[in-house]
């Protein structure tokens, strides 16, 4: 019998600590599987953020470190200069990347750092217990916006992929979602292309991954997927913003 689906070598055989219905597991698998497919697990160094995925290194089967809150792109820039031939990636949530680490991600993009950032946008702080993120939608209730996010107080949600795609050094920018099998297949393709960009040393590559947080959204996993589809995707349109000719 020929197996049609296997546990990827990129993931360690261990249950994750993520909540039921959380899409971190899917994102982890897509990235690790893509690295395994190019036989790069032994040549990859990952940087984990502060947030729910701070201990993603328990699951990633690659050399990894933790970074202080928001600083993953700076840490990856250091690693990249140490080992220019390896794959280097950061895996960051929306509080980490779009709030406290907004400076680091912009400057990584403008220097055209030759690593890949996977940006998990679930419109909320997960690990600290459901506070408002820069990406929290207007009207969305969180523990620090109990009446819903208001534009007059907190401004409009930040569209990071669009912002970074204005920076020349960010040569590959795409937004994907993990709410349906079709979107997951597209997400995998974007991740593979981002790694292609890195392999060809073309510049900074960035994949924004719209994800769910059923626990802090206060929904069932199924409802959370529908909420993502109906509320996040209209504000955060999926698609490619920049792609170099070499990987099209």
């Amino acid at each position: 019998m020929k197996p049609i689906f296997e546990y990827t070598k990129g993931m360690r055989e261990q249950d994750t600590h993520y909540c039921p219905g959380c899409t971190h597991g899917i994102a982890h698998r897509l990235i690790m599987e893509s690295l395994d497919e190019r036989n790069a697990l032994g040549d990859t160094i990952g940087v984990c953020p502060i947030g729910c995925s701070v201990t993603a290194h328990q699951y990633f089967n690659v050399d990894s470190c933790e970074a202080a809150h928001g600083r993953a792109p700076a840490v990856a820039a250091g690693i990249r200069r140490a080992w220019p031939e390896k794959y280097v990636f950061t895996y960051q949530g929306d509080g980490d990347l779009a709030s406290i680490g907004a400076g680091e991600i912009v400057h990584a993009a403008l220097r055209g750092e030759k690593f890949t950032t996977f940006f998990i946008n679930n419109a909320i702080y997960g690990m600290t217990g459901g506070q408002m993120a820069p990406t929290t939608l207007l009207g969305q209730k969180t523990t620090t916006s109990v009446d819903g996010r208001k534009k007059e107080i907190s401004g409009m949600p930040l569209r990071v992929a669009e912002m970074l795609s204005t920076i020349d050094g960010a040569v590959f920018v795409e937004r994907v979602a993990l709410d349906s099998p079709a979107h997951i297949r597209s997400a995998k393709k974007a991740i593979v292309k981002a790694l292609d960009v890195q392999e060809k040393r073309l510049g900074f590559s960035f994949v924004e991954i719209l994800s769910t947080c059923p626990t802090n959204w206060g929904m069932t996993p199924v409802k959370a997927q529908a909420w993502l589809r109906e509320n996040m995707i209209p504000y955060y349109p999926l698609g490619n913003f920049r792609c170099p000719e070499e990987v099209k």
Partner: protein
Amino acid sequence: MSEKVLMKGNEAFGAAAIQAGCDLYFGYPITPQNELTEYMSRELGRAGGTFAQAESELAAINMAYGGACAGKKAMVSSASPGIALMQEGFSFIASAELPLVAVNVSRGGPGIGGIQPGQADYRQVTRGGGNGDYHIVVYAPYCIQEAVDLIIRAFDTAGRYRNPVIVLADGMMGQMMEPVVIPQIRRQSSASEIAAEKPWALTGSGGARDRNVVRSLWLDPQQLEDQNIRLDQKYQRMKQELPEYQSVDLEGAEIVFTAFGTVSRIASEAIRLLGQRGIRAGMIRPITLWPFPYHAFEQIDHSTTKLIVSAELSMGQMIEDVELAVKGRKPVRLIQRSGGMVFTPAELAARAEELLSQYQ
């Protein structure tokens, strides 16, 4: 090969780091250390290393953290407010047990302060502004040649203990020029040497070993306590092995200065001036500020010494360590200037003489 050259302090610091085998340097402009960043941008690449200008001191220290995770010899430099911004990184790097060398060409504070020389970073570097139970080794050279030698040693100490080391200079030392010998000893480790010497480093597993993880987070309190105990055992070992000082004319001294860095040079001259007036003065010059050489004060000649003076370019910070060392056995008094004002040898001597007269 190693001949005397006339160099500005800041440039000599860079030259020393390159000879010590520095692979990666990350910096951000701030006075009075800019010539060091500029020197590294010019010279490190030519020597086979990599320079990057970060977008902030916060990014610089975290880039260095990344480089150190990867097993490379990484370095940052800055000046007082910039070092303050790096404190998060120092705590993280100490926690993750990574080697790192930082040069602090200090200036006046608090806040943005000023840009003239100061020593008010004493607490910042010896006590740490970062969170948690950690220590950073601090070397305080008094001249450019000693700074060169200590920067080379700092890379070795950082590597040996897998811990950050700060070399504390000041604006005067950074900006002045003196003839100096830079030993020509540069050697960079190859990728396979790094993998062999630093089995913990993130070099890519190559499929040959299990994956490595560099971490600072221990969510299980018992694990974190165990980690803190282990770190503390290392710090206790460092307290035994690292303290260094120089003592000058302690025998028969009526007054003993304690001074580090630039101030110890001023104190040397003040000792000479006091001698001309018939007053015997000596000095204890800490070379390591952490671990502080408390035991040096056991050498004070208790039969003659009437007064111990902590001479500082701050409102009085090192004096707390001096008092801990003296343990109330002798009066300890402060002579200080701050804000970038520097006492001259004559001013220091006159104030010391006046203080001494209170204890005759």
